[in-house]
């Protein structure tokens, strides 16, 4: 069941466009932010509200790489390995995360606290190597910094 907040947000976003379907991608992202991933229910609800067939919503989900149909960890490590980051050790950062978290690309820890993803350029090239945890940027990364972050998140994650 979608929260009233979310429903209110849906109405407000849809109102921005002369054509309702324009709201599909924002709505999907907002739904995912709240639920953690995109559920069948969300698809039906969004399709209904913007007056398209569910398959048109499914088509968008497949296209946009930030949208997923499976739950991800409370903390989703999205490590950039594109050129600028790669040159400064982006791949080593990714490997380090993988070792410390014991998971690989697009995997989630059994306790559901962490997920790991190798992503394309995040627009943090001058702060390379960089990553995003959910929507927050972490830049000028080092393995030591990663270790500290993981500890912090573990603490919050359990709580």
């Amino acid at each position, binding site marked *: 069941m979608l929260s009233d907040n979310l429903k209110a947000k849906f109405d407000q976003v849809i109102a921005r466009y002369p054509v309702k379907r324009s709201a599909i991608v924002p709505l999907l992202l907002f739904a995912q932010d709240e639920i953690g991933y995109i559920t069948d229910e969300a698809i039906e609800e969004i399709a209904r509200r913007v007056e398209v067939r569910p*398959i048109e919503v499914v088509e968008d989900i497949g*296209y946009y*790489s930030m949208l997923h149909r499976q739950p991800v960890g409370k903390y989703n490590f999205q490590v950039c390995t594109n050129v600028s980051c790669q040159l400064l050790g982006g791949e080593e950062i990714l490997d380090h995360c993988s070792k410390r978290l014991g998971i690989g690309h697009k995997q989630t820890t059994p306790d559901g606290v962490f997920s790991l993803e190798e992503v394309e350029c995040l627009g943090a090239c001058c702060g390379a190597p960089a990553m995003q945890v959910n929507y927050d940027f972490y830049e000028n990364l080092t393995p030591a910094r990663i270790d500290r972050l993981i500890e912090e998140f573990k603490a919050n994650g359990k709580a």
Partner: protein
Amino acid sequence: MADATATVNLTIDGKPVAVPTGTLLIEAAKQVGSEVPSFCYYPGLALQGACRMCLVSIEKMPKLQTACTTIVSNGMVVNTQHPEAVNGRKAMLEFLLTNHPLDCPVCDKGGECELQDAVFRYGAAETRFIETKQHQDELKFSSLVYYDRPRCILCYRCIRVCDEGMDVNAYGIGFRGSHSEIIPNHGEHLECEECGMCVDICPVGALTSGTYRYKTRPWELTYTGTICNHCGDGCKTTLSVRNNEIIRANNRDHSGFNGEFLCAKGRFGWDFVNSERRLTAPLVRHNGKQEASSWEDALDLTTARLQDVLEKHGPGSVAVIGSNRTTNEENYLLQRLARTILKTNHVDHHRTGDFSTLVSSLSEAGASDRYASMEDVARASSVLLIGNDPTQQHPLLAYQIRQAVRQNNARLYVVNRSEVKLALRQAAVFAKVGVGEEAAAVRELAGDGGSAEITTLRDKIAKESDTVVIFGDEIQGEAVRELVRWGLGLPGHTRFIALGDYANSRGAADMGVLPGSLPGYQPVGSSEWRSRYEAVWEMPLAAQPGRNLREIFDAIESGAIQALLVVGSNPVKTFQLPRELLGRLSLLVVAELFPTETTEFADVVLPAATFAEKAGTVTNTCGQAQAIKKTMRKAGTRSDFEIIVALARGLGHSWPYRSSEDVLREIITHVPGYAIALPSLLVGRAVMTRPQGAPPALERPDLVFSSHDTLFTSGTVSRFSWALNSVDEAKRPHGHIF
């Protein structure tokens, strides 16, 4: 011939050519005989510019251009064979093959694959691709449609034909980049009209047919163009046969008014022909039990027993029920047999649309040129649809209406008791009426007043011209007269279509399988017309109109009718007859394809041939006559033509017909409205008939009723179609909108 202002002059491959403004370069190229290859381009469907196969070089343009998206302009100088363009094509093909499995030897499409052909013509022999291909297992979208992703070249034709042609919108695209794939609308599953247009239009073996896959190689088949035997629309279809078995049906040559269109029944529903449950030997009742017998014995018995009944009970003691699917020639002969040799006008059939009243009212108005054809519908600027649900009952008609709306912005006006799909999706005005109030609505349209919708509809149609008026069984008798009177008063050249259920419903009426009408809707009461046909048939005809179906049943009840001959019809089921009724007959003879509720009671059952096993003509619901061709033979069966002629001979009359074509000639010379050009018929054209006549008015409205078949049912025969019964949609409630 477009006028100078509307044409553009350009040069393609050194040849000057003039084409209408707005022409696409890829089409213009065809005119000078330069073939530009393409996968995603498909005439009539939205432009994609995706496959890049149509790259050509145009002077003064920095890079190669796609001919499928370039609109010609004056003075353009195009080279379709420029080395760069040729290399471009080669490159695209090499790209396509990188992830395309080279399993052509076991691929259904092998031999008729557009990719295979393109590689043969423009491609490189060897590929430099040595990386590993992305494999993916084949998916079953439905029992009739399978998808093989690695073979898919993503031309998006299936998506477009489903959206733009069918308005079903069952397909989408999943994922992105090289992982992109075609996805069905319900998870793993396709929920749609199962028309199979996607399978047909797929240039490669990505979408395959559940009935055809892995069965054969295209070059092992023999192809025969004929007419679908299901609904009354009369789609042209090509049956592909291998050793006396139909393997598939499609219409790739786009011949006929349906172009490439076929619905689920047309594309897959022919398989009843191959059913093991076909009757293949005559059955004769011996002390209560039906037993197989030889044709000779069965026919001798039949004629002998008919003789007795006639001797014991005299004229009028025999009745005949005809078919909605047998050919015009067979219907013509059947009523001749009844009226002459069997000395009875008690001949009728299950009337699914009120053709008689349409014919008489147009004739009275001297407007017998106002029958609309299937082509007229697609070209119409305005269509009025009263009753019926064409999406379910007349798939091609629905397709034509959608074409009219999509391609020439035609306005569709709908009067219906329920929210049929056309009303919801294409209608400019939808006047919903109560159950059974369609006739009242017509009266309101023709007069004044009525609901708000009816009023708007009346006003809007008054501003249209050349409206095509289409009506279902909800409109009959007086309501038809009313509708025609009003319609003819509308601006322009109004034309009409009465809808009837099956492949030859119209022909059965046209050929006089009716108690009161001789062929061509001429009243048996008319001495002039009687004497005309007496001259042709060399036997006297009774002036007294016969009993209609309902009256025939009453007469069987009362014992007035002792013998009944049923050809290609299942009255017990259709009319829900009480079991004991037919038991009262002293003789019941049934010519049928399958054991049915009616054959159960028969004293003699004669195994008949299907539409695929005989030649002749059928007339669609619009009145367009078309030829069906003999595609194969079924051991043990005989065509109704042969059966009727044999019965006549058995009863002492040897008719002069060697083939149904001889009968057709007689029809052409003697039946009003059927003076059609035999040659054009034989080359596969649809020829419009224009019956004129004054058949007796309908005594009882309940004589005309549609069976309201769905996309997946077709009277009795669909019960014997694996394909039609295999799809989930068939189990859904009727009228379900996809």
